[in-house]
C-alpha cells in the first residue's frame, strides 16, 4: 500500500473507516441494544401493545379516533384531540399552520377551499360545545364557528370567513357597513382585522381544539376529560363519580412532580369503561 499515491491511500483508509464504523455503530450497536431491550422491556420495545380477548386493539402510546364510519364522535367514548394525521401512524405530523393563519379560502366552484387554523379552532370549539352541552364560544370566533376576521376597505368591511348569505358577526365596523364574503372574490388588498369579541368564559379546553405535534397524541388534558365525563356517564348509565374515578385512575401526573403536564390516556380510559 505504501506505493500508492497519498490521496488514494487516504480514500482507502476513509472507506475502511466507514465500513468498520458501520459494523460497530450500525450493526453491533443496534442489535445489542435490541437484544438487551427485548430481554428487559419486551413489552415496551415492541410498542406497548394492548390486547383485549387475545386480540391487539391498540398501543397505550398511540392515540385513536373514537368516531363512527361517518366521522361523528361515538357518544359512549371519551374523544381524543383533533389530529392533523387522522391518527394514522404511517403519516404522522402536525398541521404546521401559523399563529396568524386566520383567513379561509371559501369553497367556490371546483375549488374546495381551505379552512384557516383560526376557523378550524372555532369550528372544533363549537362542535365540542354542542356535543358536551356547553358553550363553545371563544375569542376571535363567530357564533357560527368560523374565525371572526374582517378585511377593511376605505368604504366597507367584509367578514371574510362568512360566506354569503350568512349574516356578518358585526353589522358595522368604525362606521363602515360589514358585508358577508362572496366566494371567489379577492379581498387581499384589504387590511386584516381579527375581532376579539367579548367572550370571557371559555368552556372548551385548549387541547380539545388543537391538533397535536405527532398527530398520535394518546392523551387529553384532565379538563377535557372532565368536560366529557357527564356525557359518557349518561350514555353508559353510570354514576358521574364512577366515571370521574376512572379518569383519576388513568391520569398520569407530572413525572417527579414537575416534568410535563398531567394527562389522561384516552384509549386506556375507554377500554376501562368497556370492561365495566
Amino acid at each position, binding site marked *: 500500500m505504501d506505493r500508492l499515491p497519498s490521496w488514494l491511500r487516504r480514500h482507502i483508509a476513509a472507506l475502511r473507516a466507514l465500513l468498520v*464504523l458501520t459494523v460497530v455503530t450500525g450493526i453491533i*450497536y443496534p442489535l445489542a441494544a435490541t437484544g438487551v431491550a427485548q430481554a428487559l422491556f419486551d413489552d415496551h420495545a415492541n410498542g406497548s*401493545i394492548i390486547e383485549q380477548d387475545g386480540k391487539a386493539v391498540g398501543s397505550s402510546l398511540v392515540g385513536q379516533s373514537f368516531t363512527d364510519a361517518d366521522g361523528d364522535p361515538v357518544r359512549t367514548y371519551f374523544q381524543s384531540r383533533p389530529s392533523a394525521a387522522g391518527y394514522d401512524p404511517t403519516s404522522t405530523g402536525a398541521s404546521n399552520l401559523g399563529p396568524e393563519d386566520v383567513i379561509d379560502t371559501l369553497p367556490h366552484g371546483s375549488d374546495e377551499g381551505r379552512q384557516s387554523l383560526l376557523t378550524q379552532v372555532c369550528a372544533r370549539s363549537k362542535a365540542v360545545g354542542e356535543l358536551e352541552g356547553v358553550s363553545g364560544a371563544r375569542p376571535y370566533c363567530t357564533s357560527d364557528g368560523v374565525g371572526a376576521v374582517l378585511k377593511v376597505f376605505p368604504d366597507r368591511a367584509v367578514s371574510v370567513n362568512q360566506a354569503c348569505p350568512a349574516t356578518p358577526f358585526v353589522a358595522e365596523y368604525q362606521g363602515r357597513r360589514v358585508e358577508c364574503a362572496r366566494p371567489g372574490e379577492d379581498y387581499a388588498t384589504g387590511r386584516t382585522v381579527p375581532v376579539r369579541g367579548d367572550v370571557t368564559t371559555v368552556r372548551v379546553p385548549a387541547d380539545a381544539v388543537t391538533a397535536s405535534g405527532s398527530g398520535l*397524541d394518546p392523551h387529553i388534558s384532565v379538563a377535557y376529560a372532565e368536560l366529557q365525563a357527564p356525557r359518557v356517564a349518561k350514555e353508559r348509565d353510570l354514576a358521574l363519580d364512577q366515571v370521574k374515578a376512572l379518569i383519576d385512575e388513568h391520569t398520569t401526573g407530572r413525572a417527579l412532580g414537575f416534568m410535563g403536564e398531567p394527562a389522561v390516556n384516552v384509549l386506556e380510559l375507554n377500554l376501562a369503561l368497556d370492561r365495566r
Partner: protein
Amino acid sequence: MSPTLAGILFIGSLLLALAVCFKPLGDYMYRVYSGTRHSAVERGIYRLLGVDPDGEQRWGVYARGVLAFSVLSVLFLYALQRLQDHLVLSLGMKAVEPSSAWNTAVSFVTNTNWQSYSGESTMGHVVQTAGLAVQNFVSAATGMAVAVALVRGFARSKTDTLGNFWVDLVRGTIRILLPIAFVAALALVAGGAIQTFAGHGTWTTLTGGEQTFTPAAAASQEAIKNLGTNGGGIFNANSAHPFENPTAWTNWLTIFLLLVIASCLPRTFGRMVGDNRQGHAVVAVMATIFAASVALTHWAERSAGGTVPQAIGAAMEGRETRFGVSDSAMFASATTLTSTGAVDSFHDSYTALGGGMLIFNMLLGEVAPGGTGAGLYGMLVLAVVTVFVAGLMVGRTPEYLGKKIGAREIKLASLYLLVTPALVLAGTAVAMATATGRAAMLNGGAHGLSEILYAYTSASNNNGSAFAGVSVNTPFHNTTLGLCMAFGRFLPIVLVLALAGSLARQAPVPASAGTLPTHRPQFVGMVVGVTIILVALTFLPALALGPLAEGLL
C-alpha cells in the same frame, strides 16, 4: 404545582444535571483526546484501516481526512438509499428518489439531519440503522475531532501537527458516544420507546378502524440522534412521536442528551490549554446566551401572543398533551441553540416571536452551547474575533491564550463568520425570487417568508429543524438546501483547521500588562456582545420582514 413553577423546575433541573456532569465528563473527554494509549479494540481497528495511530497530521492532511471520509460517507449513504428495494429488512420500502436521496445523504453526513422525507413511509430498517444512525455517530465524532484539533492549535506551539483524524474519530465514537448512547437507548426503552426489527404491526381499533405502525430500532437511534446533536427522527413527527419520546421524563432525558456533550467540551478545552478558567469563561458565554434565549422563548410561548393562540387560550397547536407548552418551548430552545434540530412540538405553529427566537438561536451560529464540537469551535472563533475587536479599541496586538491573532488568523476567523450569512441570505433570496422556491410556502404573508428563512437558516447552520409546513421535497429545494448544508459544514471546518494550523506554528507570547485577560466577566460580556451584534447587524432586515413583522404588527 403551577405550570410556571413546574416549567422553572424543569429548566433548573436540566441546568443542575449539566453542571454536575461538567467536570467529570469534560475531564473524561480530555483524557480520551489527550491519552497516548490505544485499547486492543482500537489497535485492531487501526490495523483494519491501515493507518498508524501515532502518526501526527498537519492541518491540511487532517482536513483532507475529514473531507475524504465525508465524501465517501455521502456516496455510501446515497447508494444505500437508492438500492433500498434490494436490501433485506427494508419493510417493502422503495428506492429513495434521487434528489431526496442526495439531500438526505448530505444532511446526515453534515450533522444537519434535515429531513425532506417522512421516515415511517420511506426508510426501512437497514437504511435507518446501517446508514442514517451510523452518520449520527460519525458526523458527531467528526465535529468533536475538529474542535479538539482547534484546541490543540492553541495548546501546542512551534509545531506543524494537530493530531490524527482517524484516532480522534475512532476514539470519539467508541469511547464517548457509544457507551453513553447505549445506556440512554435502554433508558428510552424503559420509558416506552420501541426497539425492534420486526415487520409492520396492525390492529383494529375500538371503533373498528385499522392502524398500522412502522416498527423501528427507534430507541438506539433516538439516543445518538440527540447525544450527537443530529436530530433526524425515525418518524416524521420526530420527538413528538410517542414511540420516540413517550413520556415527560424521556423528554427531559432527550433535552439533557442533546445539551450534554457541547456543554462539557469547554471543560475539556480548559484542561487542554492548561487553564480551567478559560473553559469556565467559554461556558459562561454559552450559559448567558442560553439563559436569555430560553427566557424570551418561554415568555413568548406562555403569553401566547397572536390571533390564533389567543383564540385557543394557549399555544397548544402542534404540542403534545404530555409535554405541555413550557417543556415544549424548552425543547425547541435547546434544539436550536445546539445544532440538533429534533423537535417535540412543531415550530411552524409557535407564536411569531417564539418562532423568531428559534430562528435567531440558529443565526447565532449555534454556539450556546452548539453542536457536538461545532459549538466549541464556533465559540472559539467568536472569542478570536472578540480579542481582535478589543485590540482595535486599545491599539494593541490582539492575543488569545498566548497566541497572536495576526492578519492570517483574523482573515480565517472572518471568513468563517461570513460563510453562513452568505448561504442563508443568498439561499433565501434565490428561493423567494423563483416561483418553484416560493411554491414551498404553506402559510401566507410574513409567516411564509419565515418558513423559507427558517429552512435556509436551518440547512446552512446544520440544524435540521424546520417550520415544517414548508414543502421542500422538490428537486429545487433538495438541491439548494443540500448545497447549503454541505458548504455550511465543510467550509467552516476547513477554515477552522487552517486557523488551528496557523496557531500551532506560533511560539507562545508571554502575557504582559497589555494582555487582555480572557477569563474574567468583562471578556465574557464582550464575547456575548460581539456574538449578538454580529447576528443583529447581518440578519435584522430579514428578521424584520418575517417573524418581527408577524409578531409586532
